[in-house]
């Protein structure tokens, strides 16, 4: 805390994950629900007190102390009411005079990594993994999760209950395994963090466009993994990719909330210090000598970030990188279309039109939308206005959210009908 009574940005979120991690290590995953309640309750108590007198001198210590006391009281209450047997949890082991488990936790990062790995357990669906990760490690409540991922509250509640039951059932004994043992799980964890970032970034369901909180949390959790990272997990490459993404946030959304396509973005709005940070992690990733999916994507993003104007973009290199990506992920419509778009800028739209004509996508409406939108744009640039219009009409009928429709309508306005 600084002298003005100001808490660091995201202080509550970060400390929430840290406290849950330390408390589950000491008291066990079996008490996850009680721990989550105690932590949530602690923040409410902080809200009530701090808004009258400002944060205390040592806000972390204050929160830890309050959370631990609340937890111990709740565990004693549960034990008295038969929710836990004495053998399972000896009451005499619960003393508020013991060292504070959160403050005494010398490896708070390890605890959070283990919890993160637990939340990304393969027994859970991808969606459930994202939900439980945000809930447990980032302090997202049910209303917030419902809002961020555009689900109804009941669905979120059920998903969390299901996931917590599985976590308890697997009786994950955190802290008993060496932290190095998480290495094989890291690629899965990175996939979830990548999806979480995209959830915030791609506005698949949210009319607000970019959800900064989700992206910020994805970045923070990915950073946590650095001390245990292996080359195959591509942690640094993923970080680079995320930094190149957030650096361009301010230019991606117009003041009135519309998407602004790359060629129209005001590049002076890109955050250069975040871009520098992206290059730092890209450099680190390069040293690992492993060129996987995230590394290639980060490299592509770095070429966009390095171009002073849209016309200065090195489309030839970007095309070649997309080709390499396509070799790794041959089923991805987005990657295949992006390669064609890069090609259309490198060689002109005409050579791409024949390839687009025979391009097929899997059944998902999202993929069909991307294809139609790409067709419209390429036809338009080639001067095939009638075909462009038909493709845009198709894209409009497939649009997944208001921002996508808005973007297509804007493109149609610039494409005169013949």
């Amino acid at each position, binding site marked *: 805390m600084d002298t003005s009574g*100001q808490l660091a*940005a995201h202080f*509550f979120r970060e400390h929430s994950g840290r406290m849950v991690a330390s408390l589950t290590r000491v008291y066990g995953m079996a008490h996850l629900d009680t721990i989550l309640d105690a932590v949530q309750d602690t923040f409410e108590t902080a809200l009530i*007190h701090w808004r009258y007198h400002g944060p205390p001198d040592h806000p972390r210590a204050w929160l830890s102390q309050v959370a631990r006391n609340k937890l111990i009281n709740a565990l004693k209450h549960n034990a008295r009411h038969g929710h836990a047997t004495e053998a399972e949890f000896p009451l005499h082991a619960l003393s508020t005079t013991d060292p504070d488990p959160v403050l005494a936790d010398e490896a708070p990062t390890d605890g959070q990594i283990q919890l993160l790995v637990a939340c990304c357990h393969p027994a859970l669906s991808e969606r459930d993994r994202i939900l439980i990760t945000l809930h447990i490690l980032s302090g997202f409540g049910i209303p917030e999760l419902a809002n961020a991922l555009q689900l109804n509250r009941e669905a979120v509640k059920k998903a969390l209950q299901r996931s917590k039951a599985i976590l308890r059932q697997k009786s994950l004994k955190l802290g008993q395994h060496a932290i190095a043992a998480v290495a094989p799980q890291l690629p899965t964890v990175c996939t979830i963090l990548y999806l979480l970032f995209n959830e915030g970034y791609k506005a698949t369901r949210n009319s607000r466009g970019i959800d900064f909180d989700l992206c910020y949390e994805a970045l923070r959790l990915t950073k946590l993994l650095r001390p245990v990272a292996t080359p195959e997990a591509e942690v640094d490459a993923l970080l680079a990719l995320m930094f190149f993404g957030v650096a361009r946030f301010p230019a991606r959304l117009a003041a009135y909330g519309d998407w602004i396509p790359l060629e129209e973005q005001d590049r002076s709005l890109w955050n250069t210090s975040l871009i520098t940070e992206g290059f730092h992690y890209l450099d680190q990733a390069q040293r690992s000598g492993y060129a996987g999916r995230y590394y290639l994507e980060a490299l592509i993003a770095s070429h966009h970030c390095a171009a002073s104007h849209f016309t200065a973009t090195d489309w030839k290199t970007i095309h070649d990188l997309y080709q390499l990506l396509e070799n790794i992920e041959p089923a991805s419509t987005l990657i295949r279309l992006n390669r064609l778009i890069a090609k259309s800028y490198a060689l002109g739209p005409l050579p791409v039109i024949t390839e687009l004509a025979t391009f097929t996508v899997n059944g998902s409406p999202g993929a069909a939308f991307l294809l139609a939108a790409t067709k419209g744009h390429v036809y338009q640039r080639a001067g095939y206005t009638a075909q462009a219009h038909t493709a845009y009409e198709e894209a409009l009928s497939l649009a997944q959210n208001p921002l996508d429709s808005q973007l297509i309508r804007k493109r149609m306005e610039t494409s005169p009908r013949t």
Partner: protein
Amino acid sequence: MKEFLMLIREDANYGELSAEEMQACIEKHYRWVETLREKGQFKEAQPLEAGGAHIRGKQRIVSDGPFLEGKECVSGYYILLAESLEEAIEIAKGNPDLDWDRAVEVREIMPMED
């Protein structure tokens, strides 16, 4: 200078607030109180525990009080310093609680007659 009691009424449903909103709520209050202090308009403030008791009449009937869950109740008080009720109302309008749709009540504390 007169003293005014400002009561905060809210239905305490903090579970709806995100971590960022909670932090923003704390920071806005803290900054507001700082400006009141600088202007000499602040005497003291305290939050109240949610629990408590309601005791009524000759029979001294004790109940859990009007602290039903989900109902608006007094969550804390401030003592403000102002020249008049009008000025106290203007000060109270600056209370960030109002941004979260809570209600405040301002009452002049009757000065003791010498």
